[in-house]
């Protein structure tokens, strides 16, 4: 169980606002954060990862990650993070990117096989395509067998074919490892297919929370906020 109650002042593209989120996430749940640009989705993810400060409390399976201003550093949180721009270590090969996180060669092999990257394991990551890079990024995020997998628009920079392939791989890894996953997305179709639960953020507040079916059949305020 993950308990989140955070507040943070934001100065974003939608002007000054306050991120004010209170929610509980069940273990193993796949949550998608939807909302327009500047609604606070990425900030929420970064606060959960410990990359940004915020007021409030975060407790993950009875371990306190944030309590008032006292925060557990990102190094000590059991988190996997997939960045929108991949953020791979350019000086390393595919395999080295994974082993840098955890020197578990068996897990490295298993993840590369699951994502069909085995043949590229000794290649430098600079030479990979966008889709391949994002799959490496996904594998790297799983190397710590994280309690929480956070993904910031992992599919947005990919073409349609690669988006479908990676979406399936995300789901495969989520189910194989039973990880609690929170993914930021703009894509309603992908969200519908992946999520157990969808949260819609608007101006820093959760304005809708429910299953994909509930969210996409709800009142016009939600659809207006999502621009769909």
């Amino acid at each position: 169980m993950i308990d989140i109650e955070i507040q943070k002042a934001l100065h974003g593209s939608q002007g000054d606002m306050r991120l004010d989120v209170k929610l509980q996430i069940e273990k193993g749940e796949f949550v998608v954060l939807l909302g327009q640009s500047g609604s606070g989705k990425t900030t929420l993810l970064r606060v959960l990862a410990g990359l940004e400060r915020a007021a409030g409390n975060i407790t993950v399976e009875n371990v306190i990650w944030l309590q008032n201003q006292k925060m557990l550093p990102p190094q000590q949180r059991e988190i996997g993070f997939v960045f929108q721009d991949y953020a791979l270590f350019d000086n390393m090969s595919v395999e080295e990117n994974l082993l840098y996180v955890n020197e578990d060669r068996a897990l490295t092999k298993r993840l590369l096989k699951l994502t069909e990257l085995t043949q590229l394991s000794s290649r430098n990551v600079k030479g990979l395509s966008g889709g391949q890079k994002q799959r490496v990024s996904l594998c790297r995020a799983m190397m710590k067998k994280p309690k929480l997998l956070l993904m910031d628009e992992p599919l947005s920079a990919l073409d349609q074919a690669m988006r479908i392939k990676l979406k399936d791989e995300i789901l495969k890894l989520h189910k194989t490892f039973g990880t609690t996953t929170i993914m930021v997305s703009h894509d309603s179709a992908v969200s519908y297919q992946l999520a157990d639960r969808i949260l819609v953020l608007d101006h820093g507040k959760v304005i809708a929370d429910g299953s994909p079916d509930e969210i996409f059949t709800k009142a016009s305020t939600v659809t207006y906020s999502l621009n769909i």
Partner: protein
Amino acid sequence: MFDIASLDLAPFMLSFKLAGITTLILFVLSLPLAWYLSQTHSKAKPILEAVTALPIVLPPSVLGFYILVVLSPNSAVGGFFEDLLGVKLVFSFTGLVVASCFYSLPFMVQPLQSGFESLNKHMLEASYLAGKSKLQTVFKVALPNIKPSLITALIITFAHTVGEFGVVLMVGGSIPGETKVASVAIYEMVEVMEYGTAHIYSAIMVLMSFLVLLAVYVFNHQQKKIGILR
């Protein structure tokens, strides 16, 4: 006719020794400073940057004068080193190293800082999220990804130290084998009108400086090419 075999290469050896030691010390000292400057949002950052860059714009005589004042046995710093540690800081090789570290500081700090600043911030965050400390991140992720800046910093610092004159002359004087570096030797040759030797010494300096700069540009060009081909 000038006898090339009789050419005294000791000043060059001393210049290279001074430049090598200075580069090594400055790399160790500048790394944390450059990293801090690249990561901080502190209001003190512009002040620190200005202080670091001062040796670029200050006349060497001004820098040399203040270093001489601080290192002299009559000052607190110079007195401490001479009385308690038995280390003479003026007109000695040790003093030259200290002076060179101040003089060449910006040439090490600035390329490193700009290299660190050009790194993808998410790459560093990914390292922290992988459980790695800042020190591990600097050595295993940041430095290997700023190789052109690193090589530029090391080579330019070395070359700049070899070429320094004013500060060296003021702090070290011209003691053969101790503080008489190549640039000072050339100055003395001109003073006594030994133009033949001055020519040869100067030509060696020109050739060496050109080769050093060529090495930097060739390396950076190759790095760019590798980046494109990968």
